[in-house]
């Protein structure tokens, strides 16, 4: 395999007057794992899209082995030996692995008949070489997410990528799958492939990188060795000292007011996506629900809120049954709800920040009298919340959809925490939120707990679960694998997330 040295010189990329990248220099030596570390919105993905030919740089040069190149599209980038695995996979679910790999450069026999045999052979060869364990004839939609990701990697390798860009590859993986991916990355490196690894998760970055380049607000802040401490790295990312550990007092659980019993949610296809789950949360306690994405967390929280159909069991808050109530009634009972997907369920994008801050309070005093709303009160509330939660917005009248992810999340959190609560449920409270804001949001959640509210956090980020939880519940395929105390080792939690019970012994699922 040939080696490729990749250089970016003075790359700038402007969107209108906004510079997503400004004067970025980056050298990726051959056979290295080079990490790009930065908060969301720092410009990592933009930079990689420039490198992959999806964006034309406003200024600057890309050099491959010392020669300047101009990519007019991903095709050019691939021809130069650069491959990319996007955060959201670019696979056709109903195609087989081989079909997906061949797509875009389909080998044909004479007369234009598709011939996949060659592709299959290549896939088997790569799969064996790196221990990928991928069947070329499996349908992509049947594969677990981790394996789909390997298909993406194979796609790049079949096209003889010498430099592989991995954009936030671990966001969708379990801890075990993440470890496997890191191993794969080391093997690829040993095989001579350079890797550009984009992440904001310090642990992974430190584990696998040779060089770390930190980007903040579109500019390179500096390089750091993998031996740098997480606190140093985080401070470089954010631009100010950050405390990574949350100082929280031990929980003082009081009365148990929130009880879920035998909760079951049946999906349209007849399977139980939430299967007989029972737990309780006391006032002044945080229960964190861990699990890999798509194991019933969404349905669990939505069932409590009342937007799921076909729900059985019982959910009581302060002795009152919530199941069967309209959403409005559930919210009026004092439930604060932060949905996992803020753009889909949490915000109305075209609405102003001010309007979003009253999205579930709009018809209550002081924001409305009868059916008449008071824009003045809505604006007052917005001004106060923007200040209190440090929401970075051009003005409270700006459309919420134009804010960065972190600030959108602050809008949702500010709204849900701005009234007296009897229960607080937050799904992925810090997804896509920068390190600085995570710290802030976590402190608000703990403050809510200390004010005596039962808190339920659902997160697929193990770090977050460990950070916040007083007790940890693990979901797997809609079932509760177990509830364990906060100090449980990560390995145990990782196994539980794969369906293995806390005392060992595999779940029959």
């Amino acid at each position, binding site marked *: 395999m040939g080696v490729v040295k990749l250089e970016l010189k003075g790359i700038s990329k402007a969107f*209108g007057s*906004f510079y*997503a990248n400004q004067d970025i220099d980056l050298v990726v030596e051959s056979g290295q794992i080079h990490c790009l570390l930065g908060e969301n*919105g720092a410009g*990592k*993905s933009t930079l990689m*899209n420039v490198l992959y*030919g*999806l*964006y*034309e740089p406003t200024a600057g040069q890309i050099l491959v082995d010392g020669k300047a190149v101009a990519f*007019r*599209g991903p*095709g050019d980038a691939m021809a130069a030996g650069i491959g990319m695995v996007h*955060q*959201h*996979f*670019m696979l*056709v679910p109903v195609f087989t692995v081989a079909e997906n790999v061949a*797509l*875009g*450069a389909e080998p044909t026999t004479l007369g234009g008949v598709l011939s996949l045999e060659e592709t299959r052979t290549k896939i088997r060869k790569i799969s064996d070489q790196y221990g990928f364990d991928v069947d070329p004839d499996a349908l992509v939609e049947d594969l677990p*997410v981790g394996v*789909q990701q390997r298909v993406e990697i194979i796609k790049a390798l079949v096209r003889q990528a010498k430099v592989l860009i991995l954009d*936030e590859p671990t*966001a*969708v993986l379990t801890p075990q799958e993440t470890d496997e991916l890191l191993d794969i990355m080391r093997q690829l490196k040993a095989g001579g492939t350079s890797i550009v690894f984009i992440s904001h998760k310090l642990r992974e970055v430190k584990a696998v990188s040779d060089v770390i380049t930190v980007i903040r607000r579109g500019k390179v802040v500096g390089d750091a060795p993998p031996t740098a401490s997480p606190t140093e790295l985080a401070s470089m990312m954010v631009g100010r000292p950050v405390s990574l550990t949350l100082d929280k007092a031990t929980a003082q659980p009081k009365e148990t007011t929130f009880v879920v019993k035998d909760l079951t949610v049946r*999906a*349209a296809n007849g399977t139980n*996506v939430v299967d007989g789950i029972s737990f309780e949360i006391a006032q002044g306690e945080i229960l964190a629900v861990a699990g890999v994405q798509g*194991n019933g967390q*969404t*349905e669990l929280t939505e069932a409590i809120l009342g*937007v*799921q*159909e076909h729900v059985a069991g019982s959910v009581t808050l302060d002795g009152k049954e919530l199941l069967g109530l309209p*959403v*409005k009634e*559930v919210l009026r009972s004092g439930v604060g709800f932060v949905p996992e997907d803020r*753009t*889909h*369920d*949490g*915000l*109305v*994008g*075209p*609405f102003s920040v001010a309007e979003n801050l009253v*999205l*579930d309070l*709009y*018809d209550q005093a002081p924001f409305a009298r009868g*059916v*008449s*709303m008071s*824009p003045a009160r809505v604006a007052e509330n917005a001004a106060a919340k923007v200040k209190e939660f440090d929401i970075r917005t051009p003005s409270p009248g700006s459309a919420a*959809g134009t804010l*960065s*992810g972190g600030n959108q999340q602050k809008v949702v959190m500010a709204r849900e925490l701005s009234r007296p609560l009897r229960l607080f449920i937050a799904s992925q409270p810090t997804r*896509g939120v920068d390190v600085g804001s995570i710290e802030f949001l976590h402190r608000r959640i703990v403050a809510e707990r200390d004010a005596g509210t039962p808190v339920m956090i659902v997160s697929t980020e193990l770090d977050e679960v460990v950070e916040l939880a007083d007790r940890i519940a693990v979901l797997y395929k809609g079932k509760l694998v177990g509830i364990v105390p906060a100090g449980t080792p990560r390995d145990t939690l990782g196994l539980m997330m794969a369906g293995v019970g806390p005392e060992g012994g595999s779940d029959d699922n």
Partner: protein
Amino acid sequence: MTTKDPIPQAGSERESSAEVQAADVALDTAGGTLEPSLVPVSTQSGDTGHAEGSLLRRIVMGNGFVSVLAVVVALVLGGILIASTDANVTKTAGYFFARPSDFLGALWSAMTRSYVALFQGSVFNPRQGFSPLLETMTVATPLICAGLGVALAFRAGLFNIGAQGQIIMSATLGAYAGFTWHLPLVVHLLVVIVMGVIGGAIWGGIVGILKARTGAHEVIVTIMLNYVALFLLDFLLNTAAFRRPGDNSPISPRLDDTAVYPQLIPGSRLHLGFLVAVALTVGVWWLLNRSTIGFEFRAVGANPAAARTAGVNVQRATVLVMAMAGALAGFGGIAQMAGTEKVLTDGVAAQIGFDSITVALLGRSTPWGTFFAGLLFGAFRAGAVQMQIQTGTPIDIVLVVQSLIVLFIAAPPLIRSIFGLNPARKKRAKTAAKAAVATGGAK
């Protein structure tokens, strides 16, 4: 890159999405393929910056500037069309290369003569002063009312094609009350209005109920109900209850004098209905921008999932907004029937219901935008007659101009590229198109 989540997740089933929403997402994704987000943040961590901006939404709620440009371009193209039918233009085109100035002069004079006539027939001319403007306002009244109904439904995310049927139902009920019952002054007109508005509200409300209960698509249902209303009217006009005594043609008796909108200015057809339309415009503005109901409507229209999560009863909002849209169209039906025509015929709704969709589109679904778009269309209609008399330009040219306006509004990128408003976007679209090819279009 803006693909929301191409990975099918085990067991994650979003039941909430009605098929419309699914279609919206599909449209978005298609749009996203050709247009990488302008907001770089949204390319990361699954933040889809414009997840809620469906194609329909972008068309009905786009930039007001595009509306103005669309009208300008449509008028220019319409002018060229007018010129092409002009004898003088055809003649001078024959010797274009010998004396091009003749041709260009003829072209210019044909265009200007027609549009001057249009203006004189709709706003002001030396002989009649401003009385053509009064006619414009008269013709605009039902368009404004029905347009408000269409716009209101748009804002709640519903594509109400049913103004035509709602107008017919309201005119039918209102007319019945107008010529059958004989009530005192004021009371009679109020009864006629209430009957008409109820008729429209029921005809719209049915759509809302079907949509909320069964998920039936409002476009299909409203189109079908238009036919039902039209043929119901045809049928009724041939029954004894509705037919004018001693007349075989499908025309109702004249409404009682107590049952019609009073004339506002002597010598014109302008009636009280116009002031009602102004009041409705103010009312809809208040409803949308200052009331909790309007807040719900707009939230449901912009992001039904978030509205539901925030406790809004989406189904109730759907029924309510369709009933209100029908009621507004009902005001339009009453304005036409009890204000302008004063009888009920099978042509009572003419094209008003369909024109009102264009009016709402052109007005960007805002109340005042709709109001002025209604006036513009009223001017087209009122002036077209004068244009035909003065210059022989066929009245249908106005229809062509109207259709062109819709075309250009529905294709904002077309307008923008005609005026060179976004050169940067074209370049990116090209690169992205290549990206799609290179990745096998698997994005």
